[in-house]
């Protein structure tokens, strides 16, 4: 049973990936600002009180699209008319282009505050 489920997941993900349009980083940045993603997730994708950290996201394009269409948390749902699949792919590409955030241990001030 477990094997069957795993196969189904892989197939679904593969299908979604095949359907996901390639992303354009430049347009993704434009859409990230236009669509107000920054309002909860921050200009640097750092996240905050109202939104998860998106920089260095582990989500695939398909997962991102699925979540944005039917979020499980409190995020507003974006329908295709408001944000197309292509635009979401572009946003995903932009998120993946963001530099990997530093860890706290690599920032002397945070290191010091944490260790005090």
């Amino acid at each position: 049973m477990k094997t069957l489920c795993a196969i189904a997941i892989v197939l679904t993900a593969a299908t979604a990936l095949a359907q996901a349009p390639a992303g354009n980083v430049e347009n993704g940045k434009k859409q990230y600002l236009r669509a107000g993603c920054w309002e909860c997730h921050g200009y640097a994708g750092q996240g905050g009180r109202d939104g998860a950290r998106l920089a260095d996201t582990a989500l695939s394009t398909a997962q991102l699209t699925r979540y944005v269409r039917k979020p499980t948390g409190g995020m507003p749902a974006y329908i295709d008319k408001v944000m197309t699949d292509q635009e979401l792919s572009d946003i995903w590409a932009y998120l993946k282009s963001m530099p990997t955030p530093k860890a706290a241990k690599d920032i002397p001030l945070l290191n010091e505050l944490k260790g005090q």
Partner: protein
Amino acid sequence: MAKSKKDAVGRRGFLKRAAAGAAAALAVKPAAALAQQPAEAARPAAPPASARTVALETAPPPPADVYTTDRPGADFMVDVLKSLNFDYIFANPGSSFRGLQESFINYGKNTKPEWITCCHEESSVAMAHGYYKIEGKPILCMAHGTVGLQHASMALYNAYADRVPVYLVLGNEQEIAFRRSDVEWTHAVQDAASMVRDYTKWDDSPISLGHFAESSVKAYKVMMTPPYEPVVICANGGLQEEPMPEEDRRTLRIPKLVIPSPPAGDPNAVLEAAKLLVAADNPVIVAGRVARTPNGIPLLVELAETLSATVIDRKFRMNFPNRHPLFNPACAPADLSRVVAAADAVLGLEVPDFWNATHAQTPINRMGMTSRPITKQGAKLITITAGDLFSRSNYQDFGRYAELDLAIAADAEATLPALIEACKRLMTPERKRVAEERGRKLAAEHKRVRDRDFDLAAAGWDASPITTARLSAELYNVIRKEDWSFVSDTTFISWWPLRLWDFDKHYQFIGGHGAYGVGYQAPAAVGAALANKKHGRISVNIQCDGDLNYAPGVLWTAAHHKIPLLNVMHNNRGYHQERMFLQDMASRAGRGIENTHIGVALDNPNINFAMLAKAYGMWSAGPIENPKDLGPAIKAALEVVKKGEPALVDVVTQAR
């Protein structure tokens, strides 16, 4: 020069004379007619007198011949209010309490209480709100019974919802004969306190000095009986300004004030609560406004340690040290809900919205509304709150009715010693073993979340606009070796100070608005800083831009009265919460969000808060956009604050 007459003139006597004088005035030639008579030949050295001067100098004397008194009624009122031991009066001046103001500054020598000049009545009351949260002492505020109270009312509602005592005296001329102009008619009101009666605990409009004395003392007692709430006393203009009647001078006295002891829970109910908590495998404590005094913190720590129970702090007060392993470091509502959902006993201590803490509702991004309990089937729900002892019906700050297993109507802090004692008595070796095991798991989870928070703070570290995490870290780095007090809320900055700093003293955190009435934060910070001043503490305020725009004159109050306060702006150039709500609404309607900046953005032009502060006479720096410039600017500001002055660093920040 008018003659001084020491004999008291009773109010009735005064009115009798006034009527007689008015009748006599009808018999003399009108002043206007005199002004029209030809003037005598003027001497060359002196300019000719104007028609107005001639009229004033030749008009008949005023109907009453008593010009002064050595003992206006306001002096006695000052004696009464001084007996209540207020440190300060916060007020924007108003003619309806001019008699009292004069008596306070001259007869009362402007000490205990000292007059603090405020630029808006909303600031006066919000300053009192902040002052109380640090010092635990209420402030005397004064305002017009009409236009002043209209300004003050939102701040009063915040204090009411936050269970904070504020003593508000309203000037009002009740006697129609004493209203000398349209101003005094428009500033008079039949029942001044009616406007705020829904969110104050008690009020009165005394009609004599004796009545004023008794009601003033009673108001203080009512205010300081949990749940603490604001009260209002109306000071009639005639009582303030007319001489104190002779009989009153001989007989009036100020009643003795006795504050009731806070109500503790019924012993049987407390024992029952202890049984439920000790028997639970996963008890959770939800702390609302429980630490009414500094002693509330060690009591809550003792209860949590006795039970090895995690403490969810609603951040209304400094209730629990945030580095204690039993402090639940989760901040987001969803994370907190998970903690409550895993509990088999939940104890709410002074939590006004316990229903919200134990239920989930359809989020704003979906249509319709359903709700469900998030607690496990059979989980025991217990509350201890003085909120059960006092209810109003119009304003809905009381929250939804919660179905409980045990409700103890009492002050939580006063009940904690008995509850701790009962829990300790009931703890068997087996329950202790279970509790210790639970405590180890909670400590590990505390550390995990703390480590995660520091990593989250690192994201966007070098970004501009500056992240609120970096702002909080840079600020803490500068003040952490001082005796600091954080005099603002963390709701709009992703709670970063509570996630990155170490809080363990009652004065280190004052919580939020009470009713989320924006315009509270800046004045509350100034009031709190004034309370901290005598203790030599460094008061620190992370100030939201939208909030400061309501009544920025409070910056002048801080500069004028030399109130040391380090303000660091969270200048995200917008009313961001409302911007997100608009985004929610646009998404619900299936429309694009391109227009959701309309009515909520504070840009074009950008507001320069450093220049604003300078205009009010305050040291300032910024606007700072490069995160590398932030630390040095805050350090420079701290030096100013250490010299006893306020300072402001304007920082352009990310939204949250």
